[in-house]
């Protein structure tokens, strides 16, 4: 996994975000076993307590679960994964719309732009919502 961190947010919340994205996009498959906290911390170059905190939060949200002896796993509940996927998509749309509104485009115009974009770059675009 490729980890990237920005300076202006806590590391643990960035780990949570990236894990959510990986689970929603299927990079981490449902039911997949996660590696140990220590291994994941070393890979991300972060403090093990930070990784532990991030995983605890994902566990609280139900996206991962732990089994007492064998470690942590990605949830198998596909409805929950789908829910997460939708939430992330909504966030993307929200920030996109905000940027476009700042540029002075109305919702109507934005729809036209997207349509035009799809026609141009449709071959590699997959913008179905």
């Amino acid at each position, binding site marked *: 996994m490729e980890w990237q*961190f920005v*300076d*202006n*947010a*806590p*590391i*643990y919340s960035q780990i949570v975000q990236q894990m959510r994205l990986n689970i929603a996009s299927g990079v981490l498959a449902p039911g997949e076993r996660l590696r140990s906290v*220590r291994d994941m*911390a*070393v890979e991300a*170059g*972060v*403090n*093990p*307590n*930070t990784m532990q*905190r991030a995983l605890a939060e994902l566990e609280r949200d139900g996206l991962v679960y732990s089994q007492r002896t064998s470690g942590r796993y990605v949830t198998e509940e596909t409805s929950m994964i789908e829910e997460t996927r939708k939430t992330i998509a909504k966030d993307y749309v929200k920030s996109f719309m905000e940027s476009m509104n700042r540029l002075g485009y109305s919702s109507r115009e934005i729809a036209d732009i997207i349509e035009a974009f799809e026609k141009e770059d449709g071959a590699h675009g997959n913008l179905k919502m």
Partner: protein
Amino acid sequence: MAILKCNELTKQYGSVCALDHISLTIEPGRIVGLLGPNGSGKTTLIKLANGLLTPSSGEILINGDKPGVESKRFISYLPDRTCIATWMTVKQLMDFYMDFYGDFDVDAARQMLSRLGIDEKQRVRQMSKGTREKVQLILVMSRKAGLYLLDEPIGGVDPATRDYILNTIIGNYNPEASVIISTHLIADVENVLDDVIFINCGQIVLTSSVDDIRENNGKSVDALFREVFKC
């Protein structure tokens, strides 16, 4: 119980006050950055913890006791300068450490040496400054200690080795042990730290968890440091 505790700790060199009534507590299982500009008192604090200096007033306790034989068993210390005998080979140094410290893990040391491409038969005298620092740090990190005091551990090594060293610190993580890293290379270490202590002119300016700094200030520890210590 706190691994390290200072109560009103003060150290004066003649009329110069290097540490001025410092009180702080470090719990087990934390990686703590001791951050401050040059001459702020970082090394003095670490030397006091090691019993290399004695307080002018106040006290410093390691596991509840004053620094002494027991604390030397407990603490693995990396000084800010070369402290290993330069006429020895790496192999001889490992034997020396094994004789001195019951918790020295020679296999761990060998593994790190080979990973960094350091020849056991080489004498310290023949090594570059960076390689000496690596050897010294490997010896210190190969002990299964309760408290690691690392004074400027990454100052003289290249960025790739820096990453390896920081990974070693995280990878050797023992939930009961704590690590104190003094440095001014904050951007390099901040992702591995739990907590930071900002120190300036012998006084503690700030103690906080790294997460809290980012959450409350919306900026990295490095950025905050530059702001607090702006020249």
